[in-house]
């Protein structure tokens, strides 16, 4: 995959005896919005911080826009935008001053005023950051990441703590990034966020990826399809990985008996069901290794 923006293979990260990331592999294509989904403490932030160049990996291969991020090459930093989970501002500056200053370090920055408008802060551009609301500061954070006109943007839990309206606004901003052709790596512990923004998601748990693919096609290894129908007044349910064969038998039997399969449904588990099944199990993590 030469066109991958991010390529991670068998990434490991230990903090002393604690293994935070235990063999994570995925790749993100250019122009793709990729969601890293998982409960708190699953290893999302550690993984992203390795890709951002903040942490050194213990083992594995990582490539971000063709660079090894832990070398923190200036050429790579010019092409990447990082949205931090919080802060990173001088409270005495205005949003305009902060964005203006950040723009200087990039070879082809976006216009600062345009960037501020892009995140919807034009009305508070000249307000001191300390007087801005938490939501406005998060949007400023996005502006700081975008002002360098990066190819790739890291969004680490971009809507944690947002009210529903602010959340919708942030989602619109992420979709706007996709329309601009940017690659986005998003971490979140909100399912609906991953479902509505990401082209593909990886579910991470206990430092391992337990499932990955487009949100609509994700399924845990065990569940597959759910086929159900009504017989004798109650609903009969079958789980199968191969619905073609099962349906053939069910419909064949029904035809042979001259009956109808009332209320026949073939369903894929929703992302929520997949997520809950994958992340709630208390099995030994070693048994989940692919």
């Amino acid at each position, binding site marked *: 995959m030469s066109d991958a923006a991010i390529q991670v293979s068998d990434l490991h990260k230990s903090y002393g005896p604690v293994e935070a990331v235990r063999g994570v592999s995925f790749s993100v294509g250019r122009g793709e919005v990729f969601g890293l989904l998982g409960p708190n403490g699953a290893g999302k932030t550690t993984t992203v911080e390795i890709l951002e160049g903040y942490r050194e990996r213990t083992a594995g291969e990582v490539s971000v826009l063709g660079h090894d991020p832990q070398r923190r090459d200036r050429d790579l930093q010019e092409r990447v935008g990082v949205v931090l989970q919080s802060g990173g501002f001088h409270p*005495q500056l205005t949003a305009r001053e902060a964005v203006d200053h950040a723009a200087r370090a990039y070879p082809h920055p976006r216009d600062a005023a345009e960037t501020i408008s892009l995140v919807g802060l034009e009305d508070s551009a000249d307000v001191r950051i300390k007087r801005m609301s938490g939501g406005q500061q998060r949007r400023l954070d996005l502006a700081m990441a975008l002002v360098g006109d990066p190819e790739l943007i890291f969004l680490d839990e971009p809507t944690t703590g947002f009210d529903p309206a602010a959340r919708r606004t942030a989602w619109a901003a992420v979709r706007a990034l996709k329309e601009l052709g940017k690659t986005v790596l998003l971490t979140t512990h909100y399912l609906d966020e991953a479902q509505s923004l990401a082209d593909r998601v990886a579910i991470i748990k206990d430092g391992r990826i337990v499932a990955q693919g487009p949100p609509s096609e994700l399924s845990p290894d065990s569940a597959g399809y759910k086929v159900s129908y009504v017989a004798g007044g109650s609903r009969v349910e079958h789980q199968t990985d191969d619905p073609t064969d099962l349906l053939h038998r069910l419909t064949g039997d029904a035809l042979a008996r001259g009956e109808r399969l009332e209320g026949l449904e073939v369903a894929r588990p929703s992302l929520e069901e997949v997520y809950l099944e994958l992340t709630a199990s208390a099995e030994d993590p070693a048994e989940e290794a692919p």
Partner: protein
Amino acid sequence: MSASSLAWAQFRLERKLFWRNPSAAFFSFGLPLLILLLTASVYGSGNDNLDILIPGVAGMSIMATTFNAMAFNVTFRREQGLLKRALATPMPLASYFAGFLGNAVVNAFVQVGIVVAIGHFVFGVDLPHDWLELVVFTAVGVFAFGSLGIALSQAIPNFDAAAAYVNIVFLPAIFISGVFYSSTSLPAVLNAIAEALPLKHVVEGLHGAIVSGSGLIDNAGSLLVVALWGVVGIFLSVRSFRWE
């Protein structure tokens, strides 16, 4: 933009930040001057004690504008995520720190200049006999106290605790280092402690430059002690630097 023009841009931002934070500006600029004016008024113009006080407060000012300011500032920036952001942006770290440290250097020199000027024009203390010595001791003092301030910030757990950490070092240091009165009147133990620390040596060098006229050669021992503290500060800072 080149690394040097980015350093200049960072320096100008730092100046702006400094003046927009009135309480920090007061503690590093205003407080030493207030102490100078109040103490000097007690002594009265022409008093011999002023020959101790003026270089003493100049030395204290160097410590306040670098050691205290760095300890507060680095702790604040770490806590605010500013250092973490600096690490991820293409602004070269050398440019970032050049602008950041340059601001403290300018503050220290301006402050020493103000103290010397007040000493001369308000209280009748001589103008410095040895300007080169004044500049050299200010520069080496900035180096030592700046690096020690950054080193101390690594031990400060959060910004709320910074004032306690800074003052537990700063206040005893100014009382035992001959800032307000001649350190010869101190108990031997305290004097020995002061001899081992850098502030007393900075003050001695400034005293030589401003008052006594004893030159750099005479004060080479003091210069060496201060410079060694600077090396210790750099070593501790680099070894333990925390970006977040």
